[in-house]
């Protein structure tokens, strides 16, 4: 895989973890939403933290779609889980939160999982080529 593709995976990782954190921060500033009044969820969308979270998650979605166009779902998901490791390290060193031994063990497990998947191939070649590959092959032949 090229450096550009690894960069796309890094953007997926960063925007997903930051977006989720912003959403959680925003929802904590609002009263609990009841099932009887689901429209209250619409009001949540106008909270600044939730807006920032949504903007980051739009960035996540665009980079996630790009990643899925060149790699398998079972490659992209574990490979981008390093965001949890990053969040834990930031919580410990930047926010001075207490991180338990169990959490450090979790970080170790995620890092090992990412190591396993990124050493293998990124894409499963199916019997049927995808449409863009057919067109690309046609362009190659016409040259």
């Amino acid at each position, binding site marked *: 895989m090229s450096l550009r593709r690894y960069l796309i995976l890094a953007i997926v990782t960063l925007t997903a973890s930051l977006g*989720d954190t912003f*959403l*959680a921060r925003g*929802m904590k500033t*609002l*009263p*609990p*939403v009841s*099932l009887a009044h*689901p429209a209250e*969820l619409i009001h*949540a969308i106008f909270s600044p933290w939730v807006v920032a979270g949504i903007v980051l*998650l739009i960035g996540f979605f665009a980079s996630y*779609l*790009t990643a*899925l*166009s*060149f790699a*398998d*779902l*079972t*490659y992209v*998901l*574990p490979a981008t*889980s390093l965001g*949890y490791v990053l969040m*834990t390290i930031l919580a410990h060193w930047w926010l001075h939160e207490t991180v*338990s031994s*169990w*959490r450090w*063990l*979790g*970080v*170790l*497990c*995620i*890092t*090992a*999982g*990412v190591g*396993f*998947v990124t*050493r*293998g*191939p990124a894409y*499963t070649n*199916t019997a049927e080529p*995808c*449409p*863009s*590959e057919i*067109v*690309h092959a046609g362009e190659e032949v016409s040259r």
Partner: protein
Amino acid sequence: MNSILATTAMIAAIVVTATSGDILIASAMRQIGDLDRIRARSGLYGAAAAVVTNGRFGLGFICLALSFFSLLFALSHRDLSLIGPAATSLTFVSNAVAAKVFLHENVDHRRWTAAIFVCAGVALLAF
């Protein structure tokens, strides 16, 4: 007891909708092909049009929107430290199973090990 059932239902709603969305969108992107190549040929608008006009992408987007609102609902009742790791770790395993069954991805020992390690790791982050 009701609290445990409610938490389980909230997590299950996130996992089911997120897995359905991920599988439908991965299937759509496989159908569309490499976005870099499409962008080189048809430009950014061409690539965007190829994505948004795909039916599977539309269905997957609806499922992910439902997952997003399920997550917002769950976060307004329970802590992120419970909902986040539980939903995410279960989604890793359900996605691996669904990708093998529906997308016929080559989920070999390496990928199963990765999914289980990440799933366990995310669950441990809740402690």
